[in-house]
């Protein structure tokens, strides 16, 4: 009997305390063949989660720390002259791994960001005359630190759209933090190896593609995305306690890529729960992650003291589930 995605989740939970959102995001991205953008303060086990996932799949893990002086070749690789062979040899960059952690992606200039995002999209890298396919599965988890924005290069919305989902990572609860202390203070637990194989992931991906999405659910997905463009009478409490129109906070809504992302993610979530059909709950659970980085909020969001997630939640709540 083959391993199920739930087994992988359980194995990762034995290594990572709490942060179920990050683990789910990683697995969903893996099943959808997409990439994740994580926003949260440092020290929340993002690296550990990536490393644990790669280990559990017996895959390769690489971490790239983005800095202002990083060059595209530092990510994708370069050609060096081999004096012994008197020929150019290709040295592949750290992007050639199954799980790549792009740490603080907004610290590198646009040229480097775009090199990474192109590789994510194309799933291949061209170095000199040669094109090298990236390994399969290939998932990038990029992080952004919201606390320290000085000297950063914000990702344009068009670039962010390439990420399948954006997850906000929060602090663990007191109970979880106590367990972290128990587990890691004295003796760091090593990630589990070989829980599933890369071939299993490819098979799960095929299964996820075959998950049934009912017509009613498809309409719900389209309505959800349309609500970001036609927020109409949806209102959300502002900082001063008064309700403001969500439409007045949005410059542009989510693209059709969000519609596709919602469908992929709903299918993948259904598979994670061992179902071969998606439910409205699947769509609603993944909607904030699929929409968060695809809606262009304007300055009023800040001046009115509205949390972006509150506005998104109000939009989602305004669309009746089938």
């Amino acid at each position, binding site marked *: 009997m083959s391993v199920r995605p739930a087994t992988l989740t359980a194995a990762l939970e034995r290594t990572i305390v709490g942060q179920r959102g990050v683990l789910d995001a990683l697995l969903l991205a893996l099943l959808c063949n997409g990439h994740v953008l994580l926003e949260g303060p440092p020290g929340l086990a993002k690296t550990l989660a990536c490393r644990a996932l790669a280990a559990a799949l017996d895959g390769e893990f690489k971490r790239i720390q983005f800095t202002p002086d990083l060059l595209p070749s530092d990510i994708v690789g370069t050609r060096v002259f081999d004096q012994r062979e008197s020929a150019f040899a290709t040295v592949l960059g750290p992007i050639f791994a199954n799980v790549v952690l792009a740490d603080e992606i907004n610290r590198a200039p646009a040229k480097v960001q775009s090199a990474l995002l192109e590789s994510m999209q194309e799933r291949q890298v061209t170095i000199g005359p040669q094109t090298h396919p990236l390994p399969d599965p290939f998932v990038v988890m990029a992080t952004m630190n919201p606390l320290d924005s000085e000297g950063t290069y914000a990702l344009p919305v068009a670039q962010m759209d390439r990420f399948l989902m954006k997850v906000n990572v929060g602090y663990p609860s007191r109970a979880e933090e106590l367990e972290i202390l128990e587990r890691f203070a004295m003796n760091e637990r090593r990630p589990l190896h070989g829980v599933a194989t890369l071939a299993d992931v490819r098979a799960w991906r095929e299964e996820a593609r075959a998950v049934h999405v009912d017509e*009613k659910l498809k309409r719900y997905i389209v309505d959800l995305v349309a609500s970001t463009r036609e927020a109409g009478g949806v209102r959300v409490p502002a900082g001063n306690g008064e309700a403001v129109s969500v439409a007045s906070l949005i410059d542009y809504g989510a693209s059709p890529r969000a519609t596709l992302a919602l469908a992929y993610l709903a299918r993948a979530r259904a598979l994670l729960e061992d179902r071969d*059909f998606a439910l409205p709950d699947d769509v609603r659970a993944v909607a904030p992650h699929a929409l968060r980085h695809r809606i262009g909020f304007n300055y009023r969001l800040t001046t009115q003291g509205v949390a972006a997630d509150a506005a998104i939640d109000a939009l989602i709540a305004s669309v009746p589930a089938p």
Partner: protein
Amino acid sequence: MARFLTVALTLAALSCAAAGIGRAQTLQRLTVTTFVLGADTSRPQIEVPFHLVVTLNVRERISAVENLELPILAELELLGDERRLEARPSGTQYRETITVVAHHTGSISIAPATLQAIDARDGRAKQYFTNPLTLQVVGGSLEPLQAGESFAGAALDLARRALLWGLGIACVAAVLILALRRRAPPVPPPVVVAVAPARPVVARTLRDELGDALSVLRADPTRATAVTVRAAVWRTVGGSEGETLADVLHRPAAADPRVRDVLRALERAAFTYDADLAAAVPAACAALERYLA
């Protein structure tokens, strides 16, 4: 054909019941003390306007009465309608006076008025009924004698009318005696016709609804029926339009594991692929049977 008709009727009944209960989310929360239908005369005269009065007393202070349905007055012509809401020390009195006129003599039956509200005493959605009303429309008043009529003819006519009146009074007396023997409810002071106190009709139980759901699903195991039944069961457990299964599972009425199984099975039947429907609907029926067992 008969099976189809049964399914259609049951579905309709289920939808109506579900819709009624579904509205419970927007119903007023009231403590109904009296809800009566009366008339200012029990024997209205033909072509003479009279009044029907619906009186509702509640303990709460309210500014409007919602979900009050008046009976259909097919045999009477509606001339006017006046509503009055009066705050009282004991709460609020709502009084709706309908002015009508009858064009035919004979007996007229008026169905009860209905009110849907959440009973503030137990928090359940209920439908309240007034008493029904039966009126006897009689002919007009005695017309003056026409000039040129003979005295004998007039006397005969007068005697005939007196006899008819006598018979009528005797009949009314007999009806009143019979009614008193049957212990008719006391007549409240503001209205002439006997009225009964409001009798709240308790909403259908979850068990009733799930029993209906099972009958419907068994009779018509299609996706459309599964979707209808799912919606009806959701409303019964307090779920409202636009919620998802996760929301409904958080409702107190869904705490029972057997109800949760039913909800999950119906969700599967509503959203699974066509090939799985043949297994999903029997699974939903089985979950319903487990609950009803």
